[in-house]
């Protein structure tokens, strides 16, 4: 089992649940869309998976193990098995595309040769091979997101979480990025992609979890 939520609720303020009694489970290697309008709770659900927030109620299992938010060491270990792509890219402005994409690899014990070779290959593969030495401000939105995707998958994580990854790019770029996520999934990485762009979701025949005001509708 990749991920399971059991009666999970999340609230930031009393009497207001952002997520309300969510229960679902996902198998390893799958591609899942998480849809819903803005404010439906998509980002909050992803934040629970990558442990930026703790559930108010319920239990979450990831890779078959319960999440223990208070154990920082275990939390860090688990996060190294997850890749995250954000809507606002979150690239470090003073690092080049190559340095940004290589960052997660630098948290591992692999050598510099491998870091350089593997990151360059990956940037070529995502389509920004000719922009490796550019700083984020010199890249278009689509290019920045490709670098962010490369950074998210550079350590070959078991799970890739994407939070509105196409929110800041045009329609055709968004479609290309969706195909890129599909390709990554075919290479063995499970993908959970949160988006409000339902019309793009329909083009891919993948299971979707739909959130409506914090409640799950499969």
């Amino acid at each position: 089992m990749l991920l399971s939520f059991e009666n999970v609720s999340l609230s930031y303020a009393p009497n207001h649940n952002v997520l309300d009694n969510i229960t679902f489970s996902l198998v390893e290697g799958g591609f899942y869309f998480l849809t819903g309008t803005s404010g439906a709770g998509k980002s909050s659900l992803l934040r629970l998976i990558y442990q930026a927030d703790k559930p108010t109620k319920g239990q979450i299992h990831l890779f078959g193990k319960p999440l223990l938010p208070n154990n920082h060491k275990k939390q860090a270990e688990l996060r190294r098995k997850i890749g995250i792509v954000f809507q606002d890219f979150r690239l470090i402005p003073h690092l080049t595309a190559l340095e940004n994409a290589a960052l997660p690899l630098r948290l591992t014990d692999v050598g510099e040769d491998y870091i350089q070779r593997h990151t360059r290959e990956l940037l070529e593969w995502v389509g920004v091979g000719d922009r490796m030495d550019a700083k984020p401000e010199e890249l278009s939105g689509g290019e920045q997101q490709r670098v962010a995707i490369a950074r998210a998958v550079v350590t070959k994580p078991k799970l890739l979480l994407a939070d509105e990854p196409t929110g800041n790019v045009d329609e055709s770029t968004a479609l290309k990025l969706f195909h890129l996520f599909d390709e990554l999934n075919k290479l063995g990485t499970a993908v959970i992609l949160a988006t409000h762009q339902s019309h793009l979701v329909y083009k891919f025949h993948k299971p979707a979890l739909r959130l409506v005001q914090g409640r799950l509708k499969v």
Partner: protein
Amino acid sequence: MSLPRHLFTPAFRYQHLGRSFAAIVGIMVFIATFATAAEAVLLTASYLWGRTAETLLTVEIPATGDEASMTQAERIKQATSLLRAIPEVSSATPLSNDEVERLLSPWFDKPELLSSMPLPTLIDVERKSGADLSSAKIKSVLKPLVSDVRVNDHGTWTKDVWRLVRGLTLLGGLTIALTALTLVIAVSLICRAVIAAERETISLLHLMGTENIDIALHFQAQASHIAFRAAVTGFLIALFVTSALFFMTHNLANLSSLGWQHWASVGIVSLLVPLCATVIAMVTARISVMRLIETFP
């Protein structure tokens, strides 16, 4: 683990926090080096002076005595013999008239006045090490020969000087301790400012699975690099200023009794200041960062 060397550079460089960090470390090292060097010189010099002075007594034979039948030279000769005969006395040496005039000259505008005055003769008496020889005993030995003899025991005023030196040493120690404390507080505040400026980067590193200790160690490496360069600069400026001050005041404070080995020990003690400051800045940076980033998501 090999995070990019310049990961936290923007906060350090572009927001001038690195400059503030370096300035504070440099200024603190300057103050501490100055205090340490001054304290080391004071302790060494006062020990050397005190060790010599506390065994000395000065016997003053007035120029005009009540024994008119005997010349001054004869009286000095006899007094010196009497002093040398005392078992606790190691040596008794009369000072020449020239030497006495040299000692008195700072108090006279016109040097010719000195030669026209009836100057007393001084005899330097050195006690044997550990001997109990009081000025009263010397007076009683010389009384039959010189009724109005005066004896100055240097051991009396060296005790007062030692008390003053101890007070100054404590003050110097307190200055160094307060400087170290100020360094800790200032480095801690600057580190907090840097971390606040780099909050996004640190949150991102957290989400990638970086552990706090790795972030803190990386930050510490960058901070200690800046601290070391600043500490060396502060030390060199302090060394220059201290040397210049000693050079300018060498007439007031005669430090010629200090040998090369004493100056070497002063240098070694002072050299510890920039090293200690770098270590303090390094450890403070690490602890501040660790405490702060534990509160980040």
